[in-house]
């Protein structure tokens, strides 16, 4: 098995002492001493309330913490409500730690999947140790659909500030929906659930070695689940708080990691989506995706200036990547008045598709190509802010739906671009 040489001896020894389990929760961490105790409490509370008879294990995959995160994980007392222990006192709630000095997120996720596979867990979940508002319900909502309803992949749904998560709203979700044919909103999230079957499938996959997915591998797991025909669903968790700036990647890093990983998936699963044009909703549990009106501070002037200067400075690159009419339209936009900028959905869909097709044809270094999308993404974001400054949540949802429909309509254009340049290059 692939994981024989992959998991450390120390981890394997711990897993042997655990034996088989029904449920596994993986907690990736790196210097999360402030929140890991709370995370463990929430997980154990969930086990206690929702899964009192099941064999369970919590796996902490730590990437070089030096603030005592591992000690806190192993020694936190867990249960808040001692009176409700009941039958849980008859079982051992195992805690296992996998230590890495400097592992990528792909290694972390692969470790959790391989652990789930080795322990023959029926349902697994991953929760981020950095999520400060994690509750027992979140863990339960990720595990229940897999354990009790035989789903294989559970994507989260959150309540978000209406201008947060725009990369997911403007790029990741529309592409997932239009290209892979599943309406899964959050493909790059710190929390999700999956079955033992999917864990086994992913563990033996070669995707973990791919450089493009090392920092954000969740999208690949989602796409693998879709493309391999596993049953997918979404489950509402709760409000997703905006993390402090120091713990989040900047906009360039986020685009490189998230869009790079998704483009790689589009390229790797070409055979699947080329012959699959269906567009299915997936079952959702709990309330739908929600938008909140919390205040947000954005420097719109800087956003527009970075778009304008980016288009001007990168014009030779954009000319190579974009179709001629798309390129001309983008140039026109960059020259227009700041207060009137409107990045139309059709133009945005064509732009993103042109980038995905150029990524496939490796028109230039793939990382550089994804970086060249950043100024255009800023332009679309700026346009989104202008358009929805006074919009209600319903208006924003309606616009998102229109964007997704436009991506679906432009799928033909995408397939033409995908195929045409292949013929030229051969």
């Amino acid at each position, binding site marked *: 098995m692939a994981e024989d040489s992959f998991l450390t001896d120390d981890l394997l020894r711990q897993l042997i002492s655990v034996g088989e389990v029904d449920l596994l929760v993986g907690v990736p961490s790196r210097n999360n001493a402030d929140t890991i105790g709370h995370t463990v409490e929430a997980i154990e509370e969930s086990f206690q309330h929702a899964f009192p008879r099941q064999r369970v294990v919590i796996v902490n995959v730590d990437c070089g913490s030096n603030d005592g995160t591992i000690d806190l994980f192993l020694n936190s007392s867990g249960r808040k409500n001692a009176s409700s222990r009941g039958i849980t006192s008859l079982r051992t709630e195992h805690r296992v730690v996998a230590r890495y000095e400097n592992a990528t997120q792909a290694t972390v996720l692969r470790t959790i999947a391989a652990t789930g596979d080795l322990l023959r867990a029926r349902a697994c979940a991953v929760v981020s140790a950095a999520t400060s508002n994690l509750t027992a319900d979140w863990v339960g909502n990720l595990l229940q659909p897999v354990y009790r309803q035989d789903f294989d992949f559970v994507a989260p749904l959150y309540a978000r500030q209406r201008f947060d998560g725009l990369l997911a709203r403007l790029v990741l979700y529309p592409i997932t929906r239009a290209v892979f044919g599943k309406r899964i909103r959050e493909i790059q999230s710190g929390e999700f659930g999956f079955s033992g079957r999917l864990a086994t499938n992913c563990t033996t996959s070669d995707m973990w070695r791919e450089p493009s997915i090392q920092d954000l591998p969740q999208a690949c797991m989602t796409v693998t689940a879709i493309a391999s025909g596993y049953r997918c669903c979404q489950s509402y968790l709760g409000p997703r708080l905006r993390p402090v700036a120091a713990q989040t990647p900047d906009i360039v890093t986020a685009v490189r990691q998230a869009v790079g990983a998704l483009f790689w998936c589009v390229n790797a699963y070409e055979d699947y989506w080329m012959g699959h044009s269906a567009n299915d909703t997936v079952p959702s549990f709990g309330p739908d995706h929600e938008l909140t009106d919390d205040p947000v501070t954005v420097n719109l002037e*800087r956003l527009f200036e970075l778009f304008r200067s980016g288009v001007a400075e990168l014009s030779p690159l954009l000319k190579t990547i974009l179709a001629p009419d798309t390129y001309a339209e983008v140039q026109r936009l960059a020259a227009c008045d700041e207060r009137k900028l409107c990045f139309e959905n059709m133009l945005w869909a064509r732009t993103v598709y042109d980038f995905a097709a150029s990524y496939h044809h490796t028109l230039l270094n793939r990382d550089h190509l994804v970086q060249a999308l950043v100024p255009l993404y800023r332009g679309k974001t700026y346009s989104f802010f202008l358009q929805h400054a006074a919009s209600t949540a319903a208006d924003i949802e309606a616009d998102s739906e229109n964007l997704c429909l436009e991506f679906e309509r432009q799928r033909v254009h995408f397939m033409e671009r995908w195929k045409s340049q292949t013929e030229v290059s051969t």
Partner: protein
Amino acid sequence: MKETILQGLTQAYENLVRMIADFLPRLVVMLTIILIGLLIAYLLRAFVRSILHLTKLDRISEEAGASHVLRKAAMPSMSEFLSRSIFWITLLGFILLGISVLQISELQEQISRLFQLLPEIFVAILILFVGVLAANFLSRAALLTAVNAGYPSPRLWSGLVRFVIWILTISMALEQVGLARETVVAAFSIAFGAVMLAVAIAFGFGGRDLARQTLERYLGSREKEREKEEEPSPL
């Protein structure tokens, strides 16, 4: 006296006529050889191109990643690159052959030296090729980083990176073929030093405020966090 002058002029004229009569056929032969070479080079290019298209070399090269490298260096596809190389090598061979027909001893000496230098020239071309790749890649990386971070004059930074790598590559290539070694090293040191000094002076004196802002931006994590907070959270 008059007769002597006339005799001298006549001899000079006869010599000139003899030289022209001797040289012209060789020139015609040389031009014919070059023309035939050009024709053969064209035919060879077309033949090699069609053979390479038939063997689907481009697809193999694409899969092996070689086309990727060529594209990064702004070069044509593998089959086009090889067929053009065959064309130029063939044409160059015929030109050298033609020149040797002229029987100009100095030229023949230079040509034989050129053949002796061929291994060094090959290594120098390889150095230039790698240099072009590195210059294209790193200048584009600098351009994208500067544009996305909002630094002023991104093309200047990108051009500077390209220029420095080009200077370094050319001096290494010339060093390899042994052309004016001392001059090349001295010229490189002076040019490189001058550029760096000019940049330092321009940046330090001409744009003190800009230097301060840029250093603050590079070194100040607070500035970076503020910029991050001013942009919508992407994920």
